[in-house]
């Protein structure tokens, strides 16, 4: 099923229904179809051709139209947020962006400005849409940064890209019809949300940034579920608080990418009877497990029926129930690796499984609990701890907004436990230290220090490699003392 055929069908059957909403902009199926066909024609006139690689840096609402146009022409594409670096080994032939990109040839750049919009309007709709030459043709790249911070790319062939519409997206787990994804269209989840909405002839809701427009959007449309990373949901809660917006229509919030904190759950509860779901998965293989957060943030996740997940030891041997080990999983049509990155592929894809780098266990009922990340274990002189064991109690302290625990060596080679804290002015580090000391008992946090923001990737996962750089001079001096 080509996207262009599906789009044409809905444009015929229900032309005036909303196809996409981004903040105050909306377009119908008829418009989406017509625009995409005009853009495709315009790009073809501009000598875009099958086999080219195109990078788009656009607001979601334009990005979706351009991406459909590119697929109509059988052109490989990927989206990047404006201002991010281009991948050195995936240099595009063209960039379509809202502005000229420094150090990229201007004659290979299409600036999507008012003139472009005018040109699109004056162009006729493309008549034939050849699409990709075969199911194996490279169709779209998705990127994932993981927590190492080094971006990796996944290639979706034309055949696999169609499959994106199958399976379920995180937002559908809550069971409602209309949902808003705070993920950008360019992300794997964002793309899936758009494709599924198109297939089901629902409008896909996007936002170009969590700001004052968002509360208006939530009140105007019957959005019942909001999905995003915990960090995006936090920004949403901030803006709702600031604008004193009530959201009685919202029935569920689905968080993915990382685990929300207790504080955040309590904040959501203030908005009424909203169900909160936490999804565990990866850009590489999608949705793996989900649980509804009730009294406790932590609860065993219900495994997707389409996933085969195992807990193994370091040699790949299956571990018994309730024993913590290395998480690995696969789906029927699992991917086999990253683009141009044999090292990362070898590290994360082994024996037909994907190894996300997480630790966890399965309970007697088959529920999955993730306990931490294998490469993030802090070794304090033989005592191994997961950062979350430290972070969770600290996050529960009144006035703490965010925090990250990590180890750093002192001049004697002894690993010290440090915690970077984002806090409100109403509390101080000493008080946090005092309140948590009781809980940690054997493990002593050597130093707390304050930061403005914890470095997190697009999914809300802490980018731990960047933490040592944040240590203030005064703390460094103390460690070296």
């Amino acid at each position, binding site marked *: 099923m080509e996207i262009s*055929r*599906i789009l*044409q069908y809905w444009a015929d059957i229900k032309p005036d229904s909303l196809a996409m909403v981004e903040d105050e902009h909306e377009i119908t199926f008829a418009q989406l179809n017509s625009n995409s066909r005009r853009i495709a024609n315009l790009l073809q006139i501009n000598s875009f051709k099958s086999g080219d690689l195109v990078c788009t840096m656009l607001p979601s609402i334009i990005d979706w139209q351009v991406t459909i146009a590119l697929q109509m022409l059988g052109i490989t594409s990927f989206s990047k947020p404006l201002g991010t670096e281009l991948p050195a080994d995936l240099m595009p032939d063209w960039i379509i962006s809202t502005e000229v990109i420094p150090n990229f040839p201007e004659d290979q750049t299409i600036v999507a400005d008012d003139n472009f919009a005018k040109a699109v309007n004056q162009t006729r709709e493309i008549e034939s849409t050849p699409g990709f030459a075969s199911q194996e043709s490279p169709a779209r790249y998705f990127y994932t940064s993981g927590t190492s911070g080094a971006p990796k790319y996944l290639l979706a062939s034309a055949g696999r890209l169609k499959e994106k519409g199958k399976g379920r997206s995180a937002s559908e787990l809550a*069971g409602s*019809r209309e949902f808003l994804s705070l993920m950008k269209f360019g992300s794997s989840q964002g793309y899936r949300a758009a494709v599924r909405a198109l*297939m*089901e*002839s629902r409008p896909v809701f996007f936002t170009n940034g969590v700001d004052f427009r968002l509360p208006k959007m939530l009140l105007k449309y019957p959005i019942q579920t909001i999905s995003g990373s915990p960090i995006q949901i936090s920004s949403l809660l901030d803006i709702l608080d600031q604008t004193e917006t009530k959201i009685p229509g919202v029935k569920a919030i689905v968080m993915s990418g990382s685990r929300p904190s207790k504080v955040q759950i309590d904040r959501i509860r203030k908005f009424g009877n909203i169900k909160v779901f936490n999804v565990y998965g990866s850009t590489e293989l999608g949705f793996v497990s*989900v649980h509804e957060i009730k009294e406790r943030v932590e609860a065993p996740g*219900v495994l997707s029926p389409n996933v085969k997940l195992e807990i193994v030891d370091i040699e790949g041997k299956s571990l018994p129930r309730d024993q913590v080990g290395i998480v690995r999983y696969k789906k029927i049509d699992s991917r086999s690796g990253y683009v141009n990155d044999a090292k990362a592929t070898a590290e994360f894809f082994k024996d037909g499984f994907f190894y996300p780098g997480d630790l966890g266990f399965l309970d007697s009922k088959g529920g999955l609990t993730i306990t931490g990340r294998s490469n993030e274990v802090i070794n304090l002189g033989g005592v191994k701890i997961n950062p979350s064991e430290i972070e969770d109690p600290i996050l529960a302290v009144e006035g703490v907004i965010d925090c990250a625990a990590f180890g750093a060596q002192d001049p004697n080679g002894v690993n010290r436990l440090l915690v970077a804290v984002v806090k409100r002015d109403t509390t101080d580090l000493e008080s946090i230290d005092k309140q948590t000391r009781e809980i940690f008992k054997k493990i002593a946090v050597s130093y707390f220090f304050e930061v403005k923001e914890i470095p997190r990737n697009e999914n809300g996962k802490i980018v731990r490699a960047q933490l040592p750089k944040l240590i203030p001079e005064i703390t460094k001096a103390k460690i070296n003392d």
Partner: protein
Amino acid sequence: MISEQLKFWSELRPSQVAFVDGKREITFAELDSHSRKIATVLQQRGVKSGDLVCTVLPAYLDWPTCLAIYMLGAVSMAILSSDIPDDEMKADWLITSRSNPTIDSTRTIEVDQQFAELVNTAPELLEPVEFIDQSKIVRINSTSGTSGKKKFIGFNTKQLLEIVEAPFSGDFIGNSKFISTMGFGASQSYNGALRELVRGQTYFTFTGNDSSWVPMISKYDIDILYGSPSKISALVDSAITSGAKIGEGFIFLLGGSTPTKNLVKKIQTNFACKVFNGYGSTETGFIAYSELDESDDGGLYVHPYGTIEIVNENDEALQAGEIGILRTKNARMAEFYINDEVATSKFFRDGFFYPGDMGYLDPKGKFFLTGRANEVLNLGGVKISLEQVDDLASTEPGVQDAAAFGLDDESGIPKLAIALVVDHEFNEESFLTSMKLKFPRAKIEKIFRLNAIPRNANGKILRQDLNQNVIN
């Protein structure tokens, strides 16, 4: 695979309603538990993997029973009405809520009070059989077509997956909520219920004849009522009689046969609703749709899930605009008739299904149905489409329903006859005059007034029956 999907939703959203049959609601947790208990009871009765199990049950009992049969690795089969399976499709078991004297009682499992009590106290089946071989048939449906001869089609796990994984497959309107008025034995019902199950959504069915489907619309926020024209017509009548109000924008989706203009008009004048026509078959599911509004030109939009081709008698593709034989294919259609090689070779060729319809595609790919391949009446060289006569006659004053057919005269020469269901407005003379103007190609030689036009379960006219009835 199906049992795992059910378990997933029953753990994640146990109290969400999974299945609604009129006033009865079943949650995901109940459906999971109930199906597993039924499976245990059936297992105790001797139902085992590979058995063919026929069910004749109301929808709310049929669905958990079908799931239980699946869990045991057995094959479930639906039969329309209370016919017992034909000899060539001998079922190992019949599960029914009505005693059926024509089947061996040792193989009949009666769903009565005693059975219900057994189920309630039974433990849940813990380890459902998994279908490793995806090409093994797990579900059989019957289809009679208009030839009247019953044929059977099977679906394997791979095809069922295709049906449920495709975000749209049966319904044309994507994510909309619909009430199906088809009996649960229809293949659309099983497939539709399965699809909603996998998506964690509710399946709605209404098999009654009164107006109590109307309150379901607001209670569950329903967008579509779906069924055969005759069924929908009856339900619309009951709603009109009871004075029920239906919100603007609500959709009536008619499938199985082309709705008469009178029915469409009746819906549009009484309710500010939309009427859609779906075209397809039990073998392929719906393949094309159109909205019957003022812009309707008789064409149907082909569903992107599959393809339609128009070919000549040598299976050569025809140009846009040329009338020919329709053939169609999609990933989840049936591929053969079970135990019926003759029918299989006639209707399934080169990966296509040939439903026996004629039509053409316009340059934009819109499909126009012109009639059935076997519904062309040859009047001494003048070929006429009986369906076209039906359509024209249906719009005449006083005509409720119409069916044209060929009737041989004393010398064996076919003549055009028509069966009509009429009301007091009808005037035979003006009818014939008007038809002569509208359809000059052939003269209607005889009119038969009937109480009802004989139609199959999907609402298709059984012209053969018509012919025989008239003769008798």
